[in-house]
């Protein structure tokens, strides 16, 4: 009997927590992850109007954790939408690790920076996280950094209002000059240092200086200028309208998600501008001041959130280490390569066609409906994940002094999987799908033709042939050691036969076994007869043999 002193009744809140945790960790019959994201509706009473209304929430946690940290967020998505979005996320450990961190930092208004290799799914999960909060099809505001990114694209700029094509051309030529960009940023710096002027006076000064600049370049000094906000202030003050469009209000906007990609490629002046986003206690800034607009402040709405992503610096020549000041101002998460287990899981999801709708009818170009044969998909997944991993290792070594690198992504597998549905090759001898040749053909288009290094291309082609048809690629399959090509051929043959053919073959098999038995019976009778006729056979044995009755 338990000690009464240790008995404790759980509160409703605790029971609810346990229930959510159970659903977060839910697994299917084959151990597949079903949880990770849980949808709930709650009735709430508006304290002012006393009206009851339903609020929708999602709970996000990492189902691979024994005790997951679970974050509750309000969502605009319906239960059906959440279900559909969940279906589009391959339940890899790394995916949930990222989603869980996104949810936690979003809730606490902390910007997040994930540094991780290309295939980890940073961009895809940023999109899915946005959909989880806003509904299907809603994408974050994306900003992509490169070595050529200008601060004005992120923050703000003045642009001349021009009417004619000729004027436009002249202005474009002028504005694209590096010298012009320097002069424009000097104007902003001067304004920032001018303390005694009012905002209106600062604006007037900006206009005067812009006109002087135009005049010095031989352009019309009467040109009107308009102020344009960049991606950061826009995201701070965005409002998502009910029709799906966006509008901007620098003071009353609720804010939106801004994804700044490849921040490792950004130049120091861009990073300096991004440092404006650092707020108090590790949170995002509540407002930023734009000197381009005479020092006017833009407020960050409550739903404004910034997610930075970048690849590890060692992968590319042009990539910088994440700036330490930026790293200190964000939640910085470093991710490693996708595990072999996750890579295979992803390949299985793609080649068993579990992520999207399967074709209702066999499309043109499709010899075998492989999307209805997961047993084939699982074998393809083993080949593709092995090849992908092999090539990725080679590419990681890189080529000396080469700027361009070709990091592989899960998209490469997804492309092969989708193309394989209707870009199939027929085996001229059997008339069935030649899966080995079809795969080779698609791997060439999606993996190999991008390679500039012809030696590597030839090596990888040879490796692929060995994997598919050589001795080293052989694996155990139904008690036999076979090449992948042989396995593909067996599986394709099985999948290609029609129901009628299947019945006929089964009947033939029964008939063959019956004939074998009949033959065995005759052989035994002959052997007994011979033994009985043999004078050397002892009488005792002959007696026993005569007693045998064969049925």
């Amino acid at each position: 009997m338990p000690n009464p002193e240790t008995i404790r009744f759980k509160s409703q809140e605790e029971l609810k927590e346990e229930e959510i945790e159970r659903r977060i960790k839910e697994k299917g019959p084959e151990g597949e992850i079903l949880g990770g994201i849980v949808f709930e509706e709650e009735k709430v009473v508006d304290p002012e109007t006393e009206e009851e209304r339903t609020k929708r929430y999602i709970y996000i946690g990492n189902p691979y954790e024994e005790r997951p940290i679970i974050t509750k967020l309000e969502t605009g998505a319906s239960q059906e939408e959440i279900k559909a979005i969940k279906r589009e996320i391959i339940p890899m450990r790394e995916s949930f690790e990222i989603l869980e961190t996104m949810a936690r930092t979003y809730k606490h208004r902390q910007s997040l920076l994930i540094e991780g290799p290309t295939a980890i799914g940073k961009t895809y999960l940023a999109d899915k996280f946005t959909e989880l909060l806003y509904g299907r099809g809603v994408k974050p505001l994306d900003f992509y950094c490169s070595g050529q990114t200008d601060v004005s694209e992120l923050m703000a700029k003045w642009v001349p209002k021009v009417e004619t094509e000729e004027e436009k051309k002249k202005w474009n030529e002028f504005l694209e000059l590096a010298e012009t960009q320097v002069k424009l940023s000097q104007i902003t710096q001067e304004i920032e240092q001018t303390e005694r002027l009012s905002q209106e006076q600062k604006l007037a000064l900006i206009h005067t200086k812009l006109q002087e600049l135009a005049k010095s370049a031989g352009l019309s000094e009467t040109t009107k200028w308009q102020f344009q906000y960049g991606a950061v202030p826009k995201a701070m003050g965005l409002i998502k309208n009910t029709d799906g469009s966006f509008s901007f209000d620098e003071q009353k906007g609720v804010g939106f998600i801004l994804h700044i990609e490849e921040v490792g490629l950004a130049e120091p002046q861009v990073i300096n501008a991004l440092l404006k986003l650092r707020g108090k206690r590790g949170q995002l800034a509540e407002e930023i001041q734009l000197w381009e607009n005479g020092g006017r402040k833009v407020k960050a709405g409550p739903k404004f959130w910034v997610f930075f992503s970048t690849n590890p610096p060692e992968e590319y020549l042009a990539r910088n280490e994440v700036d330490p000041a930026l790293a200190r101002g964000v939640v910085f998460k470093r991710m490693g390569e996708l595990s072999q287990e996750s890579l295979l899981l992803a390949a299985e999801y793609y080649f068993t066609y579990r992520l999207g709708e399967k074709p209702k009818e066999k499309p043109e170009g499709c010899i075998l409906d492989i999307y209805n044969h997961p047993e084939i998909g699982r074998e393809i997944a083993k080949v593709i994940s092995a090849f992908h991993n092999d090539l990725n290792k080679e590419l990681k070594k890189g080529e000396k002094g080469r700027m361009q690198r070709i990091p592989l992504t899960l998209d490469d597998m997804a492309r092969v999987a989708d193309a394989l549905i209707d870009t199939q090759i027929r085996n001229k001898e059997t008339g069935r799908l030649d899966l080995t040749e079809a795969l080779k053909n698609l791997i060439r288009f999606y993996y190999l033709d991008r390679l500039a290094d012809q030696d590597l291309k030839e090596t990888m082609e040879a490796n692929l042939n060995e994997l598919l048809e050589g001795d080293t690629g052989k694996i155990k399959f139904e008690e036999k050691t076979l090449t992948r090509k042989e396995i593909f051929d067996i599986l394709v043959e099985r999948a290609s036969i029609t129901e009628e053919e299947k019945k006929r073959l089964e009947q033939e098999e029964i008939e063959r076994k019956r004939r074998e038995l009949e033959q065995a019976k005759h052989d035994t009778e002959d052997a007994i007869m011979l033994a009985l006729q043999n004078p050397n056979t002892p009488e005792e044995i002959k007696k026993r043999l005569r007693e045998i009755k064969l049925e």
Partner: protein
Amino acid sequence: MEEEKLNTFIRLLQRVRKQPSQTFDLGLIVKELGSQIEVEEVFEEIKKIVDIERIVYDETIFDGDVIDKIVDIFRKNRWVFLEIKKDISSPLLNQLKHLANHNSFQLIDYQGKDIFDMKMPENSRLIVFTERDFIENKISYPHFYRLFGPTLSLK
């Protein structure tokens, strides 16, 4: 020029939608070093298969104009053949990346909208044509190849 390879390349662009995002790919045609094939010849061959318009991205054109042209071509449900002859600047690169990731353009303060979002029509695609040597030595963006799905290498 290998007609069969070109046909497969076009077919892959037309048909393949990546799981699970269901997005179409941008295509890349790379002219290898020493190849005698001319860009006009490639463009004319593709023109026989799909309704396509050509844009040359070189020193005489600005990013804003290229983006305007692509938007315009997409509005006509046509394909874009973008020949790249100078390093890609940030505004165009941003849009190419967005097109590759989401099959849409996302532009700030464009055509009177705070956020202009234009989906690439179902019947439109974008093919980039350039030379291997140019990609390797002139394109400063190190992930250039990642923007594309199928690649057609012309020898």
